[in-house]
Each structure stands twice: as structure tokens, then as C-alpha cells.
């Protein structure tokens, strides 16, 4: 079948699957899955841009998503005036020291001084930087964290609308991507993967441990929302009347309405990004990017600044992932650094991209939806399968009990198999590129 038919078929089957869940499990669950699918699709889009156009294997997806979440906290959480007074200036000063120090080091590095002078002064500067930073920052941080650690213990944020954080998350991710890209983009593909994986780990560590900024593992709960709260809806007279008229259960409907509101918001963002990506793909810029990807050496010979283009792509892709990360944190209403695990984030998104087909925006969409859907449904499905397979055994058989308890882990097995099978038999993904 042609590509268009294929796409239609898969989109259609996907909606059937969601409907299925809605009818047989619950609409709440179905919508919940759908919302996460949208977010996954956006992440896959971002990663796909990097892989498809520049051949960059970014294994640091997790880090950028977390940065997006951080932005959500910093932008939307109301400021904590006490901690700002206690340590705000100290933190600000250390940041200034950091920036000045980094600028100095870069200046020395790029200056025409002799190599031996550089080898001496750069480590010295870094050492002084670390000492100063610690001297100024540590007491400030201690004071901040000491303030009501159970309820607060951090600086808070700017108290702005949380939707703003989505874009700030993208920008933050983009800036960090610029720095990372400058350092690592010259490496060979698998080294780049290792380097980005490591950087993401460091970012997560930072977020887990710098309580003064993120409350670390204590998490930041109660982030403000862009959509109404269920309880508010339940108390709203107009809403109550609506539910009575159509005989909808109040509590459940309020929950569904909230989810639908998120759904609309998220879909709006997804569609916008998708359209922008498609326009970019078909534009002269997009053609140039593909030319570079298909034959880098010729492109270089023609005078194209390949390095700069790759950096561009890396920034854009990472910014999109940051955006999605902020959206995710908004949906969850809380910032939990410990959930950012490589298996759940980075590698799952990679499976989405590979399955969808690299360099192909539609593919990422489908990959995102499909893989997230399977990831969630694999648990109940796996359980069902194991129960079926072990039904001949008695209920108290230890093997049966063991297998059923662990059935949830079928999802990893399934992910692995899915990736391997698609990589082998449909290496260009379910939606190969090419129209």
C-alpha cells in the first residue's frame, strides 16, 4: 500500500485501540494514555530531527526533558520570600562568579598565549573558581535548605503562568544543548551517544541534589495548572447541572473534562510543531539539511558549514524535547527528579523514533503514540498472557505465582523485541522516508 494508505491505516487502528480501552477499561484511562502519547510524540519529533537530519544519536533525551521540568518549577511556583532573603543574594553571587570564571577560562583558552602557560593557568583558574564558588555559595545554600525543609527549603520560582514555562523549558534546553553541542558534536556517533548519556546523568544528579533549587528528592508538588481543577468543576453550578442533564457521573466526568482540556492544549502544541517541522522539511533549509546528511563530504566541499548546521539541529531538537518535558511536568503537577531514568526516557524515545522511521515526521508521531501505548498496555497485557499460559498450573504453584508477579516486566522484553524486530525487518521504520 502507498504511504498515505499506510498512515491512514495505522492512525485509524490506533484510534480504534484507544476507543477499545475507553469502552472496556475506562475513558479516564484512555485519555490519560492519549495525553502521554501526545507528549511522547513531541519528544520523538525532537529526537527524530536530530537523528534524521544530522545523524546525531542523542542519548541525553532524559536530561533535556528534566530541564523542561525544571523550567516548569522555576517559572510557575510562587516565590518563597524567606529563602530569597536568606540566600538569594549568595546564590546570585555564585552564579556571577561561575559565569565570570567560565568566561575567563574560555578567554585564556582562545588567547594566543603559549600552550604551557595555558596548561598552568586554566587548571589554576578552575581551582580558584571552585573554591570561591564554594565559599560564597555553600553558606547561602545551607541557609536556604535549612528553612522549613519539610515544606519548602528552596527558592521557589517566579509565580508566572505555567504555560509560559513550556517555552522557557524549550529555551533552557536549547541553551544547554548549545553548550553540550559545542563540546561533543565532533565525536563519532557512538561516542556522542555515550557523552550525551553521561551529560544527561550529570544534569539529573544536579537536579536530584541541589535542594535549594529543586527540593531534590523531596519533589516539588502542587504546581499550578493551565486547566481547571476537578474539585472546582465539581463545585461549579453550571457543570453540576450539565452532568445531571445528561446523566453523567459527576466526579468521573470532571476528571474526563480536565483530561480533555489538557488533550486539546497538548494537541494544539503538537500540531503546531508538526506543521512547522513539515514546512521546515520541505523548505530550502530542509533540502540543504538532507543534502548534508546524504553526502556530508560533498556538502562540505560546496562550502556548507556543516558543523554549524549540526549544532542548529541539535539545539532545535533538544529545545523541542525540553518543551515536552515542561508539558509533562505540568500534566503530572509535580517535579520528581527520580522519575527521569534512562530506560524510561531516553531509550524508550529512541525506540519510538526507530520504529516510526528516521527522518520522517509522521513516523515520529506514530512511533510516539504506538510505543507509549504499548509500553503502558504491556503491563496488563503481559499479565493476561502469563495468566493464560500458566492457567494449567494450580493457583498456588510457586512458579506460577513468581511468573505472575513479575509479568509487569514483560514490557521491557516487549520493547526490546519490538526494537530488534523493526530494526531488522523494517529498518527504515514503519514509515520509510520518501514520498
Amino acid at each position, binding site marked *: 500500500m502507498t504511504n498515505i494508505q499506510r498512515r491512514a491505516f495505522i492512525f485509524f487502528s490506533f484510534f480504534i485501540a484507544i476507543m477499545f480501552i475507553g469502552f472496556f477499561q475506562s475513558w479516564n484511562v484512555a485519555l490519560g494514555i492519549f495525553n502521554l502519547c501526545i507528549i511522547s510524540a513531541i519528544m520523538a519529533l525532537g529526537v527524530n530531527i536530530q537523528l534524521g537530519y544530522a545523524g546525531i544519536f542523542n542519548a541525553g533525551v532524559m536530561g533535556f526533558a528534566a530541564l523542561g521540568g525544571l523550567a516548569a518549577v522555576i517559572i510557575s511556583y510562587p516565590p518563597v520570600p524567606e529563602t530569597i532573603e536568606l540566600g538569594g543574594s549568595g546564590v546570585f553571587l555564585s552564579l556571577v562568579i561561575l559565569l565570570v570564571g567560565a568566561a575567563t577560562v574560555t578567554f585564556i583558552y582562545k588567547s594566543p598565549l603559549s600552550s604551557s602557560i595555558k596548561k598552568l593557568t586554566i587548571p589554576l583558574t578552575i581551582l580558584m573558581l571552585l573554591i570561591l564558588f564554594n565559599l560564597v555559595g555553600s553558606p547561602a545554600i545551607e541557609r536556604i535548605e535549612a528553612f522549613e525543609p519539610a515544606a519548602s527549603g528552596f527558592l521557589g520560582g517566579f509565580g508566572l503562568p505555567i504555560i509560559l514555562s513550556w517555552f522557557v523549558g524549550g529555551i533552557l534546553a536549547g541553551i544547554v544543548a548549545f553548550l553540550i553541542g559545542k563540546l561533543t558534536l565532533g565525536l563519532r556517533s557512538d561516542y556522542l551517544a*555515550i*557523552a550525551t548519556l553521561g551529560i544527561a*546523568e550529570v544534569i539529573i544528579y544536579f537536579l536530584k541534589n541541589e535542594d535549594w533549587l529543586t527540593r531534590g528528592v523531596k519533589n516539588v508538588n502542587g504546581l499550578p495548572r493551565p486547566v481547571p481543577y476537578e474539585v472546582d468543576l465539581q463545585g461549579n453550578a453550571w457543570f453540576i447541572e450539565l452532568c445531571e442533564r445528561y446523566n453523567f457521573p459527576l466526579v468521573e466526568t470532571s476528571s474526563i473534562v480536565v483530561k480533555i482540556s489538557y488533550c486539546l492544549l497538548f494537541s494544539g502544541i503538537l500540531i503546531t510543531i508538526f506543521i512547522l517541522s513539515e514546512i521546515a522539511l520541505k523548505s530550502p533549509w530542509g533540502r540543504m539539511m538532507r543534502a548534508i546528511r546524504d553526502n556530508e563530504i560533498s556538502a562540505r566541499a560546496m562550502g556548507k558549514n556543516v558543523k554549524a548546521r549540526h549544532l542548529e539541529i541539535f539545539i532545535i531538537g533538544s529545545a523541542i524535547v525540553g518543551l515536552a518535558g515542561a508539558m509533562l511536568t505540568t500534566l503530572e503537577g509535580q517535579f520528581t527528579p527520580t522519575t527521569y531514568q534512562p*530506560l524510561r526516557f531516553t531509550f524508550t524515545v529512541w525506540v519510538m523514533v526507530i520504529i516510526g522511521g528516521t527522518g520522517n515526521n509522521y513516523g515520529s508521531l506514530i512511533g510516539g503514540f504506538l510505543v507509549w501505548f504499548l509500553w503502558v498496555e504491556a503491563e496488563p497485557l503481559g499479565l493476561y498472557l502469563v495468566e493464560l499460559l500458566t492457567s494449567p498450573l494450580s493457583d498456588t504453584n510457586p512458579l506460577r505465582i*513468581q511468573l505472575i508477579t513479575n509479568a509487569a516486566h*514483560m514490557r521491557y*522484553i516487549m520493547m526490546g*523485541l519490538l526494537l*530488534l524486530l523493526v530494526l531488522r525487518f523494517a529498518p527504515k521504520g514503519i514509515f520509510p522516508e520518501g514520498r
Partner: protein
Amino acid sequence: MDFFNAIALITNFILLPGLTYGSQLALGALGVTLIYAVLRFSNFAHGEIMSFGAMVCILFTWLGQSYGISFGFLPTALLFVPVAMIFTILYCIFIEKFVFSYYRKKKSNPIIFLIASIGVMFFTAGLIRFIIGPSDQSFNDGVRFIFTVREFKALTGLNEGFGLKTSQAITILTTIILCSLLFFFLNSTRTGKSMRAFSDNEDLALLSGIDPNKVVLLTWIIAGGLATFAGVLYGLDKIYKPFIFLQMLLPIFSAAIVGGVGNPLGAFIGGYIIALSELFVTFAYKKVLGYLLPENLEPTTMMQFLSTDYKFAVSFIILVIVLIIKPTGIFSGKTI
């Protein structure tokens, strides 16, 4: 006197744990570097293979323990390492046959191999958790300490002391033995030289009559065997957590790259560099400096370079520095 106290502290908190952890990393990094050198790809599934080896060993240990088998003052698990190795190697051969050999024949891009290894990683992770469950498993029996800190203090009369855990001694000794055997194999035997030749120049190796299938098989046998040891020793020394091996992937790759990826000696040394650096940089030197410096200069704060939470970050920071300054690593492995 104070000087010895300081040394005792450093030995107990940096040197011994560092050498132990370094040995575990070295064994893991050796597997990774061999696979890179001969099979020419970065195997992201290696952590899970280590976990697999440990898992099989644990299962057999439980079986053995239920039959009353024990190994005296040494952990029973050691008896079952050979069995675990066989299973792990078979698993590696299975993966090679059904996943990697296809791409080897097609001479695919290394990134394809990497993605495939991610698929294997997922699959193996799921398999392990399915079989043994996701929770921590402790399986160390036998005598815990060869001598404790208290015994040491009693013997020497010092204020501070260091203890030697059985698992530490076993790990370090085993690693030295295994690595010596490996280096002897690679440098002095015909098969070992064939492997090195194959890694150096595949086409020329084929022309010289070296059988590629044998080399590939041998690589997986050695890597699988080393991974099993690494997984078991880590699990004995600390605890077996199915999740931890994914985290270890980063320090292991760092060790391999820092030492010069593709170079076995590099992987060996790299393991210790990473492990000792992690500890050196995050250790609180307050007490040590207290012993070494005169009274009025004693520090009041913890005196850490970086907080302990950044332990894993250290290996990565070292990796980034190496990648920027000298990407081929200390011993100049294959170039990037």
C-alpha cells in the same frame, strides 16, 4: 603516629574500596573494550549481561544452599561461577547469532549495532526481572571480614584502622588473576595474537588464514566470562540490584575510553583510575587533614572537592575531559 592514622583512614575509605570497585569496573571495561576492538561496536547491553551472569550465579547458589552446599569461609557463590559463565556465554552466543551477526555480514554502520545493543539491553533487562524479580538480592555468605577495623586497631594500637572484607580481597585477587591470564593469552598465544591481528586489520587477518567465526566466538566467550565475574563480584561485595547495572554502564565505558578504547591494558588501568578518582574527589578529608596538619590549621568543614552525591558524575567528568583533550585515551586505543 598521626601519619599512620591518616594512612589507615585513606586505606579504609579510599584505597581498599577503590581497588575493589576498580577491579569490578576493570572486568566490565575489559569486556566492553574487547567487543569494541574485535566486533567494532559499543555494546550498551554489557551491563545487563553482567547482571545476567550474576543472576544465574545467584539462582544456582540458592539451589546449592538448599542442598546444604557451602564453601567454608568463602562465599558459596564462587563455586557456581563456572556454571553461571557457561550460561552467560551461551546467552551471548545466542544474541550474536540472532542479532549481531546479521549486521556484521551487512557491514552496517556502528550506530546500528548500538541501537541493536539497546534492544538487547531492554530484552535482557526484562528477562532478568521476569526471572528473578526487581528487588535487591543479597547472596553473600561465608566470613564477612578477613580482619575488621577493630581487630586492626587492637593489633596496631592506632586510633584509626582499616578492615579487609573477604569480598574485597576476593575481588582484587580474582581480577589480578583473570587479567594476567587474559594478557598472557592475548600476547603469547597463537589464538590471542590472531584476535589482536583481527582487531588490527580485519582484511589482512582474513588473508592470513584467520577464521573470523572463531575470533567472534572467542570474543563473546571471553567478554561473557569476564562479565559474569564482574557481576558476581559486584553483587557479593555490595548487593545484587537488577537496576544498578544500567547505571554502571557509564563508569564502565568511561574506564574503557579513558584507558584507550580497544586496548585491554587501557581498560584495566582505566577501571582503577575511574574508581579511585570517584572516591578521591568525593571523600571528606576533614579527619585526614586533622591528623596531618598542625593543631591550629585543622579544618572545620568537610573538605570535599565535590559532594558525595556526585560520585557517578565524576566518572563522566573525567570522560568528558579525556574526550576533549586526548580522545584516544591514555594508551591510544582505536581513534575516534
